[in-house]
């Protein structure tokens, strides 16, 4: 697998078995529409794997089936060679960091972290030692005697993390663990999580609707919508070679041009003839052009594709300006230097064929525009 060069050698790693989901589906009783449909996933030991998707995409249901809280209606879950599809959660070497932390309110921090070890029948002395180690690792040692309600959200989060990590499971599942934290704390926790994952060498399966988070932290990302997996790949893969238009729109920002091959063999986006590097055999397909691939003004002149447009919107972003340019009937999303382009002005837009990606039509149903935006 191409991913191997990216994978870090885990220090004292404990994860040895890959986790496999084979055509897993889940339909909740009393509903017709499956929450998860035909999901195939391979998660390598020791990697940071993200399930990315908007709410209702089935990512949390998938996670809950890996944890054992839900039984798949079809398909199998395998850890190494063991089929664990029907195993109850307490018999799986898998631990979860819950979205609302789910710390035991009647136990202090130390007792919370010691709990899984107690249940595993680990000796007192060893419990003490390992709890100390992990409290230190997530920097909550000074709060060891506090009760959960005396902690801040970030502290609870770290205690929940320690509780999941301390029994050294094969897998740790994280269900939108940073959802309730403010931006600054989120960014801090992202770094902590990544470092921690590398140190302990445990496979992380991370559920998030935040594409930035997934891109920044993951070895591999599975992008889900409407209960299906649209694409699995490394962050660079899914960003630069989106498999479906949904992925293109959901991960990062992009301009999607509806393209058609006409009788003359040339490709047109509306009335605009475009050059495409390796167009798919289909008559209709999409072309995804990232904002950073677009050249503006004088720079556009040297590009393979060029079009004249009018700036409709220029939104100041600090380091640069986000632009919406109307060109040949299309609304193009671009980024430009501060002050160079203003609303109402004319601007040349261009891109090179290598910087655009053709997306063939897919059989996966396209989620509505609404759903694709929800995650933002």
């Amino acid at each position, binding site marked *: 697998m191409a991913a191997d060069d990216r994978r870090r050698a885990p220090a004292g790693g404990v994860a040895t078995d890959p986790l496999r989901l084979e055509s897993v589906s889940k339909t909740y009783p009393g509903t017709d529409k499956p929450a998860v449909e035909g999901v195939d996933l391979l998660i390598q030991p020791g990697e940071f794997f993200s399930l990315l998707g908007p709410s209702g995409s089935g990512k949390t249901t998938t996670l809950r089936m890996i*944890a*054992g*809280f839900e039984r798949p209606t079809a398909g199998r879950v395998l850890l190494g060679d063991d089929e664990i599809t029907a195993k*109850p*959660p*307490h018999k799986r070497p*898998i*631990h*979860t960091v*819950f979205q*609302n932390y*789910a*710390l*035991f*309110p*009647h*136990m202090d921090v130390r007792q919370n972290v010691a*709990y*899984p070890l*107690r*249940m*595993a029948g680990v000796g007192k002395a060893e419990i003490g030692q390992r709890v100390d180690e992990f409290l230190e690792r997530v920097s909550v040692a000074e709060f060891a005697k506090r*009760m*959960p*309600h*005396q902690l801040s959200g970030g502290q609870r989060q770290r205690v929940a993390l320690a*509780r999941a990590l301390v*029994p050294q499971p094969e897998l740790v599942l994280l269900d939108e663990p940073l959802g309730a934290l403010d931006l600054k704390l989120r960014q801090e926790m992202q770094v902590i999580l990544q470092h921690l994952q590398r140190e302990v060498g445990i496979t992380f399966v991370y559920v998030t609707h935040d594409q930035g988070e997934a891109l920044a932290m993951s070895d591999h990302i599975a992008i889900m919508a409407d209960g299906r997996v649209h694409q699995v790949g490394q962050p660079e893969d899914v960003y630069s070679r989106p498999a479906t238009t949904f992925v293109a729109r959901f991960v990062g920002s992009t301009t999607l041009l509806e393209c058609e091959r006409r009788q003359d063999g040339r490709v047109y986006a509306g009335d605009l003839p475009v050059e495409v590097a390796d167009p798919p055999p289909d008559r209709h397909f999409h072309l995804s052009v990232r904002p950073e691939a677009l050249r503006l003004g004088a720079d556009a002149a040297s590009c393979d594709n060029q079009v004249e447009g009018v700036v409709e919107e220029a939104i100041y972003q600090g380091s640069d300006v986000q632009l919406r340019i109307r060109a040949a009937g299309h609304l193009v999303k671009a980024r430009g230097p501060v002050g160079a382009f203003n609303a109402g002005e004319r601007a040349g837009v261009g891109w090179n064929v290598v910087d655009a990606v053709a997306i063939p039509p897919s059989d996966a149903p396209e989620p509505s525009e609404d759903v694709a935006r929800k995650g933002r």
Partner: protein
Amino acid sequence: MTEAAVTVEPAGPVARPSLGERIRGGWRWLLAVPAIIWIAAAVIAPNVVLLLYSVWENQIFGVQHNLTLHNYETVVQSDTVRTLMLRSLLIALGAATMATLVAFPLAYVVVRYFGKYKFFAALLVIVPLWVSFLMRVFSWKIILGENGILNGFLQTTGIISEPSSVFLYSPWAVALVMTYVGIPYVFLSAYTLLDRIPESLYEAADDCGASQWRTFRTVVWPISRPAVVIGFMLVFVLVFGDYVTPELVGGFSGTMVGTIAVQAFGGLNNWPYGAALAISTVVVSLTVLGLLSLLLRKRYVLEGETA
């Protein structure tokens, strides 16, 4: 610009302070007056009267207002009182224990496994509370009596040939009936708390490797214990001072301390002695409640509660 210019003058007429704001002045205590009157009239006054009677002297022509400890001496020295006090204590603790053993698991099962029907199920358990206490106790006479349902059942099934009178008129009958009476109280108390334990805590325990039983022991029980103890206390208090149930189903061997207190006020017409008995009962009861309250200590806060 002078400093005075900084002061902002209110534009237009000053808004009238709301009722709450006005009360917040020096008059807030007024709000407590109805409660104070109620507590003074319904709780403190009767108990002061009772306390006074217990230290007054009973004479043939009526109660003399001389202070004496004679009534308490009689209470403490009486073998009958000691026996009945002990019996009442055992019956009350027994009934409360039995009611808890039935109601707590019941509440657990209802909350965990009845899904959207749990409220309906809970309603069924507490519905007997709408029926008069006397009726609920009396109905047991129909069940346990010589011509009762139990005897009828045992005779028709051939287990016994003659109707038996052992089921009624015993301390066991009192304990059984009071267990029945107490169940909704423990249930209600346990149900409200169990219902507030979030599903994620059960999942977290499962996730941490705890079996269902260990989850119950290490998570559910410690969290719900205070509520269960409250329910236990309710039943204990209800039973300990009761004189109606012993009267109806207890017979002679099922007499409790409340019975002789009633007799002292009634037939014996010895109010000071009755008052001393009542006060003694309250003291014993409070001692037990005090010990039980040690089990109430709670260090945690559940979701949705304020610290």
